[in-house]
């Protein structure tokens, strides 16, 4: 079930250069939202809404939180809104979170926000391997820690945490054994590398994909990604069949 309407912004702050954290009061959407889903937010002056992942769901307060980066004129227009946001959501298929067992959340850059919900739901069961370009881009790591999750930070330049990409620490963690599932969101090369490592070590992997989107509700089929289902190649809709897919199904 999704909804569409204008919702009041009740909290807004920056987490870094051009990265915003916005909380809206949207009880019906908060009530329906699942971890890993997204919303489509209207960008004043632009034809297309912008898909933005849900970072936090608080059903008691009736709020949703979004953490997003200003990437172009549309997200800039959204970031400039101070009173309300016109939101279509919650949309798509989120993460399938197992009731027990260890989970590894792998995030890259602005792909980290939708993983925070996994940490909030599963606390100590989660190890979050979070990769950023450099120290100035690091977001949300302390919130994962506050939830009791184990955080492994990586930066491309080694300015904080381990130097290099997330796949090396991921492989080490998986070698330790006992991991139920890996859940990943970030740039395509990172997702591909994550899926490869998981396949090699035979651990289930869910990936959250991104694609240029139109309607957001499955009607226009522009946000396709190539998938394999029952041995057959077909385009799936990132907005409706995803954004979270089993990595095995995705043709990277």
């Amino acid at each position, binding site marked *: *079930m*999704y*909804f*569409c309407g204008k919702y009041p912004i009740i909290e807004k702050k920056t987490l870094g250069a051009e990265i915003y954290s916005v909380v809206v009061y949207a009880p019906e959407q908060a009530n329906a939202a699942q971890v890993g889903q997204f919303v489509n937010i*209207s960008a004043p002056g*632009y*034809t*297309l*809404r912008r898909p933005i992942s849900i970072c936090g769901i608080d059903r008691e307060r009736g709020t949703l939180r979004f953490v997003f980066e200003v990437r172009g004129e*549309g997200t800039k227009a959204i970031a400039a809104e101070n009173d309300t946001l016109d939101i*279509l959501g919650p949309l798509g298929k989120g993460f399938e979170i197992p009731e027990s067992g260890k989970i590894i959340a792998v995030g890259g850059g602005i792909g980290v926000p939708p993983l925070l919900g996994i940490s909030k739901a599963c606390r100590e069961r989660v190890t979050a391997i979070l990769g950023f370009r450099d120290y100035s881009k690091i977001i949300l790591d302390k919130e994962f820690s506050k939830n009791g999750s184990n955080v492994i930070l990586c930066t491309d330049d080694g300015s904080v945490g381990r130097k290099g990409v997330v796949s090396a620490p991921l492989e080490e963690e998986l070698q330790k054994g006992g991991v139920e599932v890996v859940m990943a969101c970030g740039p395509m090369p990172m997702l591909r590398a994550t899926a490869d490592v998981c396949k090699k070590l035979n651990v289930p992997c869910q990936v959250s994909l991104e*694609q*240029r*989107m*139109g*309607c*957001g*509700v*499955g*009607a*226009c*089929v*522009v*946000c*396709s*990604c*190539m998938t394999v289902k029952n041995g057959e*190649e*077909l*385009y799936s809709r990132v907005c*409706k069949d995803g954004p979270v897919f089993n990595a095995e199904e995705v043709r990277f």
Partner: protein
Amino acid sequence: MSDALKVKIAGVEFKNPVIAASGTYGNGECYTDLYPISRLGGISCKGMTITPRLGNPPPRIAETPSGILNSVGLQNIGVRGFAEKYLPELKKSDCVIIANVAGAAVEDYIAAAEILDCTAVDMIELNISCPNVKAGGAAWGISRENAAMVTSSVRKATKKPLIVKLTPNVTDIAEIAKAVEAAGADSISLINTLLGMRIDIKTRRPVLKNNMGGLSGPAVFPVAVRMVRQCYKAVKIPIIGMGGVSSWQDAVEIMLAGAAAVQMGTALFSDPYSPLKVIDGLENYLKREGISSISEIVGKCEEWG
């Protein structure tokens, strides 16, 4: 809702003149969380072909000033898939169901129409204007002879009311309109998208993987109004106007140009409620202006001498 919004096209009654445009509304299943499709006058279903099609590789969409480019490439589950999977549910609604049909060869159009003829669809919209597939689509719509040939062939294959959807990517759309009217079309719909292209200046690559795509949205609205007007003056069959219609004022404008009903597509992406707002806006407009039927305004643009 009052009777003032009722329109009749090719013998089919629409309770209001607002129709969801093909390719933007799925097969009616995607927006039901917000409102029942019965609120609409009609729905033109996702373009279908005789056999299922995979569609074009992504990215399939690019934003443009006041519009979008798309190159979906007729991804669909085929006519039989549509009839089995979607049509029964669609028929439970109280709106006119239009099957939009495309093909690579004239035999494909005929075969699809023959199958649809035995189903409960209310009308067939012949898509001879898709700009995004190499074989077929627009290849039919850019020549009078081909447009007439495919229209008359499908005309023989079905008794369903036949709408022919025209492409704006031609020198003289009125000539095509006259050709399909003479070939047996009951109605025409226009405009399909305008062929366009965008290039990423950093990568020097087209934004769309298909290189080119179809432009829609408010950017094309004046072109749509002009072409509807030209066709209105050229043919007697009713016209379904589309191309960037986003508000009730747009709907009135394109109807004054000559459209008996309107289709809305891209506007849904900005505001899924936009068709309902247009319906309400039209109803209020008629009341305010003291007009008893929306059909009274069709074609009533008074051109300068």
